[in-house]
């Protein structure tokens, strides 16, 4: 079981409103691995995250995605979530009037029900949550507020990772979690993510900048451009990109076409 990849993306083609964005993505993520996907604006990074999470409006035209051996594309978004796929949103959504604690407890209990675990009552839940809050240095009053409402940019991102810590997903997709974070917040968020790493789960980190990868050190770095993975390397590839930009990878490719 542990040898089975968590995610296998095979020749994934997808787009929005007839416009092709992903043009044949191949990607395999095994348990215990951290993968980074980098690329310039418009290369398809966020589309990849959206398709994996099942966001409406994205159309898969070809290819296959297996999640722990199951057909991911056949599942509703909530089913994917309950199966342990977590998306840390680039722009976390505000839900006025819905208490954060209530929201997260409902979410956790859905996931637990799906896994055949008993639902947690309010006290058990609060104990669990208090530990996880410390991990992300979040203030407890945040739990009494409405989901993401009136949160600062940094608080929203930390709240995403906090939710991830509570839900304990098998595959976490972090969509530009570093954008809009100052260096202190970046450290806290990265620390949180790193603590959640285990040999049984995996992380897919989507980012624009190498900066985040100083803190969340990837096993693999993929360069995404025009809907295709042009190059895959280890963490040194990210450093090279930082130094030389994307052109040295993109230009020869463009010339070859």
């Amino acid at each position, binding site marked *: 079981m542990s040898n089975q990849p968590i995610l296998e993306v095979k020749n994934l083609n997808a787009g929005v409103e007839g416009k092709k964005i992903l043009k044949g993505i191949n990607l395999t993520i095994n348990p215990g691995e951290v993968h980074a996907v980098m690329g310039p604006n418009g290369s398809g990074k966020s589309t990849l995250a959206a398709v994996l*999470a*099942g*966001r*409406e*409006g994205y159309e898969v035209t070809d290819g296959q995605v297996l999640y722990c051996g199951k057909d991911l594309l056949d599942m*509703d*978004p*909530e089913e*994917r*979530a*309950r199966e342990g796929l*977590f*998306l840390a*949103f680039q722009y*976390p*959504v*505000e*839900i*006025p*009037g*819905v*208490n954060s604690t*209530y*929201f*997260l407890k*409902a*979410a956790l209990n*859905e*996931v637990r029900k*799906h896994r055949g675990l008993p639902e947690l009552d309010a006290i058990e839940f609060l104990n669990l949550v208090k530990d996880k809050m410390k991990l992300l240095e979040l203030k407890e009053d945040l739990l009494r507020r*409405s989901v993401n409402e009136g949160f600062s940019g940094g608080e929203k991102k930390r709240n995403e990772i906090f*939710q991830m810590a509570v*839900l304990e997903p098998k595959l976490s997709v972090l969509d530009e979690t570093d954008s809009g974070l100052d260096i202190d917040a970046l450290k806290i968020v990265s620390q949180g993510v790193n603590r959640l790493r285990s040999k049984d789960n995996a992380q897919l980190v989507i980012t624009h900048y190498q900066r985040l990868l100083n803190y969340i050190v990837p096993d693999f770095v993929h360069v995404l451009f025009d809907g295709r993975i042009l190059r895959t390397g280890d963490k040194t590839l990210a450093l090279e990109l930082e130094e030389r930009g994307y052109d040295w990878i993109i230009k020869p490719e463009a010339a070859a076409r």
Partner: protein
Amino acid sequence: MSTATETIEGFVKKEYKYGFVTDVETESAPPGLNEDIIRLISGKKNEPQFMLDWRLKSFRHWLTMKEPAWPHLKYPPIDFQDAVYYSAPKKHGSGPKSLDEVDPKLLETYEKLGIPLKERERLAGVAVDAVFDSVSVGTTFKEKLAEKGIIFCAFSEAVQNHPELVMKYLGSVVPYTDNFYAALNSAVFSDGSFCYIPKGVRCPMELSTYFRINAANTGQFERTLIVADEGASVSYLEGCTAPMRDEHQLHAAVVELIALDNAQIKYSTVQNWYPGDAEGKGGIYNFVTKRAICKGKNSRVSWTQVETGSAITWKYPSCILLGDNSVGEFYSVAVTNNYQQADTGTKMVHIGRNTRSTIVSKGISAGHGQNSYRGLVKMQKTATNARNFSQCDSLLLGNKCGAHTFPYIEVKNSTARIEHEASTSKIGEDQIFYCNQRGLSTQDAVNMIVNGFCKEVFRELPMEFAVEAQKLLGVSLEGSVG
């Protein structure tokens, strides 16, 4: 896999589970409205002369009036000569003396609605007056309440047994001249509930009236009158349902509340009249006048309403704050789905010193629903140090519905303070997807967001009804998810 847009639209297809018809023999007046019909209604009820005189005065006044044109509502003209103004389940012999003699079919109807009237299965802690079409079919816990001196009975009974109270208070808050529908109601009202809480008595249980329209093509006109004498307090709940029919049906009720010195009345409504089908066919036209007077000092009246039914709702439960230090409150959730339209809100008229009022209105629109808040806050010259706080929030589901706010403010005293807050928000596909991504189904997500939106109002409902209201809201916005 369904898209979030489709599912939001899917909520339009709600099911109405109270749409059945009870097959009882009825006794009805011929359609149309004239003085003979009014004499017939009054005669059927064996009313004293003062009632007939009042009805006829009301009718003659009504003839001079026009339907209000100012509400933000669209509907074809109503032919008032086409409706039936009196319909009652046929009585055998001299009519039921007690609930044991009530037609079993009627008892069955209320049981189906979750309101058992029979002694053994009655709702604990709630006394119910059940009104079926034009008449009250029975009132529970009457004797128990009588021990405390509380009068809780059908309006027609009060006219017979307590004419002095009826004469004193009927029309004292909503005069028959007040508006078109109030005048119509005053002329033809057939029954309703009457309640009197004597001095210093706290009513030991919730009182409630359950209104059921059954007969086709019949208007329902009931009248509720509640008097809380000095230092008395009562919590009152009203519920309503009707069968699913293709034609529109008219419902024009009047509710009058009177609170004397230090008295408190809490009036809660869960309105679930048949709203019409997904194409806007059928449904109840609900034109209701509800008004309270805080007559005595330190008195308090609180209106809480959850409005999910009716094709058209036109209703402004109001408070006249006459007594010094009196308090008026209005908490409302109004849902319009499919082709429902609501023009609802409140009026707070501050006359006494240090009077206070609070308005919290939550409008939810889905499908092609149109939801308007209309509210008046009036500070008279005498209302020294009066205060009002108003909050009007609208929530939109989908992009074919509408929310409108019409606040009116009149201030004639410079020491008065008024605050008004308003907001409009939309349940977005982003919010639904965010919830989905955390493992919540779309239905649960919408319920969670809607309930979060309404919680300030639900908090004001009596406990068991708050649960009921939440469920009702779930049903109202339920659809074919997935």
